[in-house]
Each structure stands twice: as C-alpha cells, then as structure tokens.
C-alpha cells in the first residue's frame, strides 16, 4: 500500500457533510487523505458500496452520519451502523483489516470533530498501511445465526 493512504468518507448531507463544511469555514486543518463523497443519508450506503470503495483502491472508508436520534430520515443512521458492522465482517473474510472501515457520528455543528475524526482515522490507516495494528476498538463480530441477517433486520 501507498505511503499516503486515500480515504473515502461517505458523509451524510445533513450532518457530517455540513460538519465538513464547518470544519472548512473554521479552517480546521486535517490530513489531505480524506475524499468526501456526499450521500443523502448514511442509510444509503450499502455494504457493497463500501467494499467497492476498497476494490477501487481506497485504503480506508469512513461512513459519517448523524447522532443516534437526530437522523433527518429518522432511522437511516441506525440502519447504516448495522450495515457497516456487516461490511466489517465481509471485509474481515477477505483478509482486509476491518479497522479500515468505521462509522462515526458527527453532528452538523461539529466541524472540529469532523477534523479530528478525519485526522485520527487517517492516522489509523497509516499505521495499518505500515503494518501496525490499529488501536481502535472494533466491535467484535458475533457469529451470525444461521438464518438471521442482522444487517437487514429493521
């Protein structure tokens, strides 16, 4: 992997994307590695969208949505959290470290948080690229039940 990782950040229009704007307005500096993809809601991000970003060469993917309870579409972020957890399992199966994918809650007003989150995630990916272990606490994947797709349960 490259020295300078490329990170795709799927950002919800109503919160994280707005926070990214605010980070800009406030001139909060963060690494240049972040590439933002605007989406109407994190609930729009399917597992495969995330996997494809990796296929196309992303070193890390962050999905950033509203805080629980303040989704513009009521529960899109709740669905997204589950889908990201599922996508982490799928990544792990392929041998890609699931720490390369993370969901973050960033409210529209949290410009500085967007910047620090971006910086932290970039640092994590850099460490992973260098062969180090990420320090992130990943939600450990439970073995899925035979016929239960947790990610698709409402």
């Amino acid at each position, binding site marked *: 992997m490259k020295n300078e990782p490329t990170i795709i950040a799927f950002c919800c229009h109503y919160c994280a994307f707005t926070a990214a704007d605010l980070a800009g307005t406030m001139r909060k500096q963060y690494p240049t590695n972040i590439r933002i993809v605007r989406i109407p809601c994190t609930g729009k991000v399917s597992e495969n969208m995330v*996997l*494809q970003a990796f296929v196309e060469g992303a070193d890390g993917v962050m999905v950033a949505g509203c805080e629980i309870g303040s989704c513009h579409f009521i529960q899109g972020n709740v669905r997204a959290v589950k889908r990201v957890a599922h996508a982490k399992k*799928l990544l792990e199966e392929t*041998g*890609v470290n699931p720490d390369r994918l993370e969901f973050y809650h960033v409210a529209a007003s949290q410009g500085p948080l967007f910047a620090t989150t971006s910086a932290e995630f970039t640092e994590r990916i850099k460490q992973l690229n260098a062969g180090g272990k990420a320090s992130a606490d990943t939600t450990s994947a439970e073995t899925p039940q035979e*016929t*239960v797709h*947790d990610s698709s*349960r*409402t």
Partner: protein
Amino acid sequence: MIVAERKLFDDLYAKASKHKKVLLLGCGTCVTVCMAGGEKEVDILDSQLKLASRERGDDFEVTTHTIVRQCDDEFFDEETSRKIAAADAVITLACGVGVQFCSEKYPEKRVYAGVNTVFYGATVEQGLWEERCAGCGECIVDQFAGICPVARCAKSLMNGPCGGSSNGKCEVDKETDCAWALIVKRMKELGTLEELSEITLPKDWSTSRDGGPRRIVHESLRLDEGTKKEG
C-alpha cells in the same frame, strides 16, 4: 420460498482461485428474497473476491451476472450463455436446483454452488427466516392445527411432544419454539386438543425424498413434440 445462505467465503475463494476466469451467477427469485444470492450478494461476493485476491496475491478475473430464475431454461439466454462460455468456471448463487440446472445446461463447464440451500421457509420478520415445510409429499399440517411436525419438530415426531419440550422451547435449541408446544397451544385454543389422543400411525414417506427423486407430471400442460420451441 427456498431459503439459502451464502457459503463461507474461504470455501468460495478456494474454488474461485483455482480458475483464471470465474463468473458469479445470481438468481433473481427465492435466493434474492432471502438475501443469499441476488444481485446484491453477487456484487458483494465479486468485491470480496477482488479484495481477497489482491490481499493474497492471486490473479483471477471475476465477472458477474444475474438472471431471473436458474430453474427455468429460458432465462439462460444468449447473453448468459456467452458470459458462461467466456468463463472457466461458474459459481452460482442459486439454490441447489439452480446449481444443477446450470450444470446440466453447460455440461462442459465447472459449476460450483455458492450457497447452501437450507430449507423451505418464510420471512418471519425482515432478516429472519424460519423453516416451515420439509416437502414430504403428503401434507398433514391440517391435522396439527396448521403447524407441521415433520418440518418443525427436531425429531419429526408425529405423536409428540417428547420429554425435552421446555417452556415452549425445543431442547435442541433454546431459541427454537417446540413445534409440539405450538400445536398443543393452538389446539387447546381451538378446543380440539382431545384430537391428539388419536394415534397418528407411521407416516407414508414414499412421497418424500425417501421415494427417490420425485417428478410431477401434468400431461395436460405438456407441449407436444411439434409445438415445443427450439432452444
């Protein structure tokens, strides 16, 4: 509907990596509904194989295609045939029926099963499917208040429940309802519990899988040789 679940990724990877060009063939009917082998799952597997081959340093090409049903001849159209021909092997994400049908249609091609076909079942709620029918060939559900002991009792007891029924759950799996507890409850509600004092005699299994591969023929529906379409 037929309910399946995708095989373990490592299994599929081992199969795919033996070939240079692999086609992932999805099925747009039952396995789509149970989220095991529709277009989305095909694309996910496609991405996964690509990522894993990069991680593991293997070199093979993956293509994808999904058709409406893999258990009917006509859906294997020209485009599908062309894509299958272009690949060294096919991993089909259809149920066992589809896998066989595909193998029969393309005898020269290596066809792998991408999913495990598990049961005939229902979507109990989104993301949760449960077995409801065992396809035994002789439906006795109506004797048991609409709950099938063949499919839903771990021992297929016809005169249950066994001693392992506990708090309405099966001893084999505490998450699973004891079919007989359900039967008793429902029959009690219907006021037909006493019907259970009749012994259900040994079942005729000849209509089931035990009678060999089964066929159903509707002579009236069959086309004459002359009217069959080429294909």
